[in-house]
């Protein structure tokens, strides 16, 4: 009896202690937390921005990584979790999160004004971090010659035998199908907003369906291409070019008809360290810092001045090079915010039949 | 009292059986043993003496490394346990926990294709035999230890096996229950004329139950015989010490005359004993004397060996008393008396015994238990 009471007292003490340490953990200033997408892109940010930021300002940084999805941020903000400050988000996440008040408005004056950036990089709640794209990639050791040059080529399994890797989402996929069917990039979303246009996209996809291997994570693409599992794949160029540089691979990409989008830096509205977060945004968007980024990952830059400053040889591999923007299509995130549920549902039904 | 079976009529026969586990000393060696039909034979010995291995070889769970085991003249070699038609009762019952008593007992019938009313009648008969009528629907975990062992017994009997093998079946029960079940096992064996091979390390149990006892030690058979023969005429010091209680006095043979000999023990005491086996003067021996054969002075009627001693300890046991006495040389002798002993520690007393009751065995010939 007495021993039980003692055990109970011990247990309560333990709980109290845990609670106490939890509290002090909150009170102690934690480093500024910046959240990227992991892998080579996060490493590029670290080397281009984060290391120098701490050196220059003395503000300690702590990294985390995620795979997108504004729901993650909504859960954190609604749940009172204040562990993230600066996060790299995709456009739809930016739109939805901004409407929900999950992000702090950007003080553009402090970032030398909206005009210092390309138009796509400017949003009330976020500043463009990088410009990336989805396009056709293949292994030059397996397909000789110039390779596929358009989405029509991608669909042409007679000229280019073998399977095709595509991301298992309607986003990008429907757009590519329409372009393969001859819709000019500028009209893609106009067509997709009509039921007939959606039907047309699915009809075109149906042609290629038996040859498609669906992937769900971009990290699968180098393996799929390198092992010959697929002859060509929808990909972002970064992973392949990094593999070419570091592993001596011969991956090649075709920029024609690429879909590009901007990733943004946002500051979460419940961040306890907004001043340092703003300081970090300034550091990461300053032209002299941003121009270093393509050294580590082939990506388009959002600062106009940085785009002019970068090494032209590095620019070849990025969407910042004007030659890479022939027939390019900017992802219409507001279209996907509106039609995403419906099209995903239809896509999932279609893909499983 | 049954006599050892005549050669050729053995029901079960172990012939030169040996069991060696890889690399070790033999668990059983040179075993020759015959069991007659209807006989209750007990394998008695300390743990590790080879008695259980012997039983398991007969049941078919172990294969002999050498020699042969025969049932009714036919070799059992290569015959799997489930074809041997032997009822085995294990120490921990080995009831099937997911079946009730009835289904446990019916199990051997079911695998023999006996089902329905015929099986039911047999099960009821078997349960009645072990006094468990009406408990058929119980599950093993709802039974006491004694009841479980009765179920195990019923299950081993219901299919009318050629022989029943029991491996320390009462080892897990308390003494009173054990004694009651001993009586019942004996009753059932007589009533049904069962042939039983029984394994135990409890010599009292062996004496109570058996027609014959086979004493094992160190993997070897030490002696086979009726309980009376084993108790009164042990062939060696091990049997003398293991079966029943015995005092052992170590000494040297000083003289041999006919059917008795003279032994000098510690304290220069000389005692008369009956030698077992060939003994010559100078041999180191152990003289054994059972406590009930030691008489207590002072008015002893001319026993052969008479010594003055001191009381070391007196223990009261209700129906008898036990006295531990110390001889002048320091050797201890325990004696048992039906009368009440009123002696205090260190009090002097006189003890004695006759030479016929005192057996002398040569040292060094004993097996290691």
């Amino acid at each position: 009896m007495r021993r039980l009471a003692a055990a109970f007292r011990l247990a309560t003490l333990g709980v109290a202690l845990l609670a106490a340490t939890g509290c002090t953990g909150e009170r102690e200033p934690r480093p500024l937390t910046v959240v990227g997408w992991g892998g080579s892109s996060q490493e590029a940010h670290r080397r281009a921005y984060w290391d120098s930021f701490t050196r220059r300002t003395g503000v300690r940084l702590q990294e985390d990584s995620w795979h997108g999805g504004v729901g993650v941020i909504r859960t954190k903000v609604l749940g009172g979790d204040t562990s993230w400050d600066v996060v790299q988000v995709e456009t739809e996440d930016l739109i939805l999160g901004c409407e929900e008040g999950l992000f702090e408005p950007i003080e553009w004056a402090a970032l030398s004004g909206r005009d210092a950036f390309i138009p796509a990089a400017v949003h009330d709640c976020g500043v463009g971090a990088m410009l990336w794209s989805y396009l056709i990639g293949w292994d030059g050791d397996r397909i000789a010659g110039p390779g596929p040059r358009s989405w029509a080529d991608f669909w042409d399994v007679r000229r280019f035998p073998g399977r095709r890797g595509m991301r298992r989402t309607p986003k990008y996929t429907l757009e590519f199908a329409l372009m393969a069917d001859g819709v000019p990039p500028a009209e893609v979303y106009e067509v997709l907003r009509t039921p007939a246009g959606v039907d047309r996209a699915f009809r075109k996809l149906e042609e290629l369906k038996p040859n498609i291997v669906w992937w769900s994570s971009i990290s699968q693409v180098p393996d799929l291409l390198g092992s010959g599992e697929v002859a060509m794949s929808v990909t972002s160029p970064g992973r392949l070019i990094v593999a070419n540089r570091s592993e001596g691979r011969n991956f090649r990409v075709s920029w024609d008809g690429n879909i590009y989008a901007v990733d943004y830096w946002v500051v979460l509205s419940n961040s306890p360290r907004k001043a340092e977060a703003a300081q970090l945004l300034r550091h990461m968007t300053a032209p002299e810092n941003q121009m270093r980024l393509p050294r580590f990952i082939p990506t388009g830059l959002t600062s106009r001045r940085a785009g002019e400053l970068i090494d032209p040889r590095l620019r070849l591999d990025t969407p910042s090079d004007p030659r890479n923007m022939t027939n390019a299509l900017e992802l219409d995130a507001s279209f996907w915010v509106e039609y995403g549920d419906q099209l995903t549902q239809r896509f999932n039904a279609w893909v499983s039949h | 009292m049954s006599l050892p079976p005549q050669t050729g009529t053995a029901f079960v026969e172990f012939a030169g059986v040996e069991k060696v586990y890889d690399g070790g000393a033999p668990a059983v060696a040179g075993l020759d043993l015959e069991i007659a039909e209807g006989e209750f034979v007990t394998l008695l010995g300390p743990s590790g003496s080879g008695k259980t291995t012997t039983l398991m070889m007969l049941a078919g769970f172990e294969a002999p490394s050498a020699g042969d085991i025969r049932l009714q003249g036919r070799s059992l070699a290569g015959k799997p346990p489930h074809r041997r038609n032997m009822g085995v009762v294990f120490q921990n019952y080995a009831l099937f926990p997911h079946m009730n008593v009835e289904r446990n007992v019916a199990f051997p019938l079911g695998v023999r294709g006996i089902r329905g009313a015929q099986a039911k009648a047999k099960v009821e008969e078997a349960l009645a035999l072990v006094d468990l009528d009406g408990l058929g629907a119980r599950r093993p975990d709802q039974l006491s230890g004694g009841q479980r062992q009765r179920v195990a017994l019923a299950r081993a009997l219901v299919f009318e096996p050629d022989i029943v093998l029991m491996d320390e079946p009462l080892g897990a029960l308390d003494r009173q229950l054990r004694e009651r079940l001993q009586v019942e096992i004996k009753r059932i064996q007589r009533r049904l004329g069962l042939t039983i091979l029984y394994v135990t390390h409890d010599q009292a149990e062996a004496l109570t139950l058996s027609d014959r006892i086979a004493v094992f030690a160190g993997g070897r058979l030490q002696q086979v015989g009726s309980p009376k023969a084993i108790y009164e005429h042990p062939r060696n010091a091990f049997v003398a010490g293991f079966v029943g209680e015995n005092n052992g006095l170590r000494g040297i043979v000083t003289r041999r005359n006919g059917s008795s000999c003279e032994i000098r023990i510690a304290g220069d005491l000389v005692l008369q004993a009956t030698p077992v086996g060939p003994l010559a003067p100078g041999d180191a021996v152990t003289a054994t004397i059972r406590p009930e054969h030691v008489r207590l002075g002072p008015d002893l009627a001319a026993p052969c060996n008479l010594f003055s001693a001191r009381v070391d300890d007196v223990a009261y046991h209700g129906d008898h008393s036990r006295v531990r006495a110390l001889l002048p040389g320091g050797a201890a002798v325990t004696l048992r008396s039906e009368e009440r002993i009123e002696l205090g520690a260190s009090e002097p007393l006189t003890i004695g015994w006759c030479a016929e009751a005192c057996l002398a065995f040569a040292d060094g010939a004993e097996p290691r238990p």
Partner: protein
Amino acid sequence: MPGSPTERAGAARRDWWPFALVAPLILFLAAGFLIPVLMMLSRGVTDHELASAWPETAQALRGWDGAGLPDETVVPILAAEIVGARKAGHLNLVANRLNYDRVGSRSLVYRTADALEGGAPARSFADLARIDPRWSEAGQWASMRQAAGPLTSFYLLASLDRRLSPQGAVERVEAEQAVFVDILLRTFKISAVVALLCALLGYPVAYLLATLPPRLANPLLILVLLPFWTSALVRTTAWVVLLQSEGVLNGFLIGAGLIEAPLPLIYNRLGVYIAMTHVLLPFLVLPLYGVMKGISPVEMRAASSLGAGPVAAFLKIYLPQTLPGLAAGMIIVFTLALGYYITPALVGGGADQMVSGSIAFYTNQTLNWGMAAALSLLLLLPLGLMLFAGRYLARTVPA
């Protein structure tokens, strides 16, 4: 004195104390798990977005019978609340909610808000129709009425590929949008097959573990547990290397002349079965191993001595006693498998995606937590049945 008042009081106190000891855990579970889960699940059957952003509009719509258009008095109320909600920052909630049911409602709401802020009049349906003709469609208003809450069947019906017609009858959605029944059935089927495969492969493994001497069993147990300690990605990559067209297995089979063209072993259902069975196997082996360890080997000897051959002894004595462990393991595997989606996403094809993938999509990507909650509810149903079946099995067979 057994049964005396003090004795009984003491017993009662002893009964109470263990609960006091686990009280912190219970509180922790309630606060950290049960309540949030219930709150999340409740989103599957409640509709609060419209009612909280446009309370008076919701009131007016609830009073309407749903036929044709509502009373025109709702128009100025709605107009005022659209503008008010935008100022308060709530317009996105209701816009997104309406968009779930009628795609395009989101832009309709925002375009209307823009027009109203620009001074467009909004007293009649005609005024609204001038801003956007969709305001004169009865279906638009019926959809808003259904969203007025407080309770809704919208998400649950949508999870079963059903919806309410404007007339309030349950109808199927268009065939091209019907996906969730398929996905749910597929999820149950994949989970059941994986549980079965785990049972077939795991039973002999558990038996081996239970019967080997510890010296050999322990390293083997570590091998069984290995997938636990490997990240999902590494494990999956390993399977890709093994199973792909030019992978190790196909290379071996072609090299040995057994097949001519590579077998499709991955990016299809087979790949999902292989990878999921691999990672879930320990969950079957461990409980089964525990139960098998508890079966005395003497029972098998007893069965044998009673005349049962090895097969009969196994079927009648061993197998029945291992059933509770087998059932427990299969229930655990089935339950865990229901929640899988990353493995199917990485090694499966288009027709192999599981319902948790949809739940994650709605939770993270589009913030449609109502759909996520409704799908989760449907996933919980068979779980409840499983637990019930588990309890029943545990009662009928002693452990």
